[in-house]
C-alpha cells in the first residue's frame, strides 16, 4: 500500500518536476527569444547602420568584452559599483539607525535629508571632480551620493516603526543596548532596509555608468560612450547588453541574499495567506 502510493507519488513528482522546469524556462526565456528573433528580422530588412542584427552584436560582444577588456574596463567598473553599494549600505544603515532611534535628531534632519535626496546625483559629478579629482574615489563617492538615500530613508522608517510590544519585551527582560540593536531593531527594520537596498542597486548601476562617462579613460560607461562617438555601433550595443546582464546578475544575487535574510518575513506572509 505504502510502496504503491509511494511509487505513484514518485512518478507524479517527476512529471511535475519536469514540467515545472520546462515552464520555469519557457516563461522567462520565451519573450526575450521572441524579441531577439523580431530584432533579427527587422535588422535584415532595414538599411540603417544603427541597428545591426543580433548575431553581429553577439560577435562584437565576444570580441569586445571577452579578453583583456574584461580586466581593464569591466572589473574596475564592477569593483567601484561593489564599493559604492557596500559603502551605501554601511553608511545608510548606520546613520539611519542612529537617526531612527533618536527622536530629536530625526526632527532636526528630516527636512534636510528630503532636500539632499531631491538633488539629482549626476549634478554632483562636477563638484566631486573639483573636490576629489578624476579618481576612483570620486566615482565611488558619486555612486554613494545617490545610492545611500533609499537605504538611509528606509532604515529610518524601519527603525522608527519597531513594534512597541517587542520593545517593551526587550525592556522588561533588561536586554542590553547592543543586543536590542542586533536582535530587535535591525531585524525588525530589515524588510524596509532590504527594500531600500533593492532601489539602491539600480541607482548605483546608473551612477556607475554616468560617473565613467565624464572625463574618464576606462570603465564600462567610458567604453560605451567611446564606441558611440566612433561609430562602432555593434560594439556600443554589446556594451549596453553587458550592462543589462550586470543588472540582471545584481537582481538575482540580491534575490538570493534577500530570501535568506528575510526568510522569516516571507514565511509569515505565506502562513498568513494560507
Amino acid at each position, binding site marked *: 500500500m505504502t510502496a504503491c502510493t509511494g511509487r505513484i507519488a514518485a512518478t507524479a513528482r517527476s512529471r511535475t518536476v519536469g514540467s515545472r522546469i520546462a515552464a520555469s524556462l519557457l516563461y522567462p526565456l520565451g519573450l526575450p527569444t521572441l524579441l531577439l528573433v523580431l530584432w533579427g528580422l527587422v535588422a535584415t530588412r532595414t538599411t540603417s547602420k544603427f541597428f545591426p542584427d543580433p548575431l553581429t552584436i553577439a560577435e562584437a560582444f565576444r570580441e569586445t568584452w571577452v579578453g583583456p577588456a574584461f580586466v581593464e574596463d569591466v572589473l574596475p567598473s564592477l569593483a567601484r559599483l561593489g564599493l559604492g553599494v557596500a559603502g551605501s549600505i554601511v553608511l545608510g544603515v548606520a546613520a539611519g539607525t542612529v537617526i531612527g532611534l533618536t527622536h530629536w535628531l530625526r526632527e532636526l534632519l528630516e527636512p534636510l535629508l528630503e532636500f539632499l535626496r531631491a538633488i539629482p546625483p549626476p549634478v554632483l559629478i562636477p563638484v566631486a571632480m573639483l573636490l576629489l579629482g578624476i579618481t576612483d574615489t570620486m566615482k565611488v563617492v558619486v555612486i554613494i551620493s545617490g545610492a545611500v538615500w533609499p537605504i538611509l530613508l528606509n532604515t529610518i522608517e524601519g527603525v522608527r516603526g519597531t*513594534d512597541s*510590544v*517587542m520593545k*517593551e*519585551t526587550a*525592556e*522588561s*527582560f*533588561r*536586554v*542590553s543596548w547592543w*543586543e536590542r540593536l542586533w*536582535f*530587535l531593531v535591525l*531585524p*525588525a527594520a*530589515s524588510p524596509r532596509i532590504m527594500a531600500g537596498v533593492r532601489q539602491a542597486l539600480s541607482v548605483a548601476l546608473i551612477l556607475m555608468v554616468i560617473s565613467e562617462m565624464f572625463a574618464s579613460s576606462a570603465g564600462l560607461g567610458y567604453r560605451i560612450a567611446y564606441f558611440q562617438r566612433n561609430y562602432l555601433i555593434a560594439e556600443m550595443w554589446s556594451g549596453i547588453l553587458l550592462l543589462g546582464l550586470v543588472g540582471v546578475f545584481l537582481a538575482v544575487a540580491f534575490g538570493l541574499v534577500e530570501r535568506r535574510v528575510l526568510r*522569516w*518575513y516571507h*514565511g*509569515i506572509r505565506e*502562513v498568513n495567506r494560507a
Partner: protein
Amino acid sequence: MPDRRTLLRVEHLRKVYEATTGDVEAIGDISFTMDAGELVCIVGPSGCGKTTLLKCLAGLLRPTSGVVEMDGSPVTGPSPAMAVVFQEYGRSLYPWLTVRGNVELPLRHKKLTRAARNKLVVDALEAVGLAHAARSHPWQLSGGMQQRVAIARAIAYQPDVLIMDEPFAAVDAQTRADLEDLVRELHASRTISILFVTHDIDESVYLGQRVLVLSTSPTWVQEDLAIDLPPERDQITTRALPRFTELRTHVYDQIQRAKRGQVAAPRSVP
C-alpha cells in the same frame, strides 16, 4: 509550607496619564501585598487599568505616586526578579528568531556559561512541552504554542515573580484550559510566585490562591478574596464544586457592583 515572607508590596499606587485634553486617572489608589510562592489573580471590569497596573509593577511605567517594593527594595525599572508574559504573544515573540533563540535572548546578558544557559533553555522548553519545537520559528506554531514559548522564555529567566497579562485572552477555550493547567503545574513544581491578570472570572477563581477584585477606573482594590478550593485542581471536578460556583458568583457580583459604582472608594477612609 514555603516561607511566607512578603515578596511584592504595593502601597497607594496611583497613575495619572497626562494628556492635552485633560488628565486621565487610570489607577486611583491600589495597595496589596503578595507573599513569596503565592499565585494571585487580579480580575476587574474591562478598562479598569489592569495593564497599567502590571506595567507599573514590572517597572515599565513610572507610577504618579505610591510605592512598589520587590523583596524590600523599591522597583524603579525592570527588575531581574520579574518576568512578564504579555497578552499579544504574536508581538512579544521575535519572528526572526527561532523558538530557542527567543527563549535564550533574555539570558544573553546574564553571566552564564554556555552550558548553563543551554540547560536553562532546554529545561524551560521541556517544562512547557515544546522541546521538539526548539528550532521552529514562532509563526510556524499555533497561538497556544506561541504563548507556551513566551512562558518558557519567562521561566528560563528564573524570576521570583512571573507577571502574566491576560495571557490566554487570544487563544481558544480548549487551549486555554491546557494553558491554565500548565500555569498551575509550573507554580507547583517551581518555587515561583505568579501574578496573573485576567478579565475572566472563572479563570481567576480556578487558578488563584487569592483573587484581587479591582474596581472600575480610577482603580482600587475592591476585594481581596482567599480562594479556599483544594490545592489539587482539575478542569472538571474543581469547576463542578459547589464552592467554586459560590466563589465565582461572589466575584461576579463584586464586579457587577464595581461596574455600577456601588462601592465607595477607600480614599475617604484615612
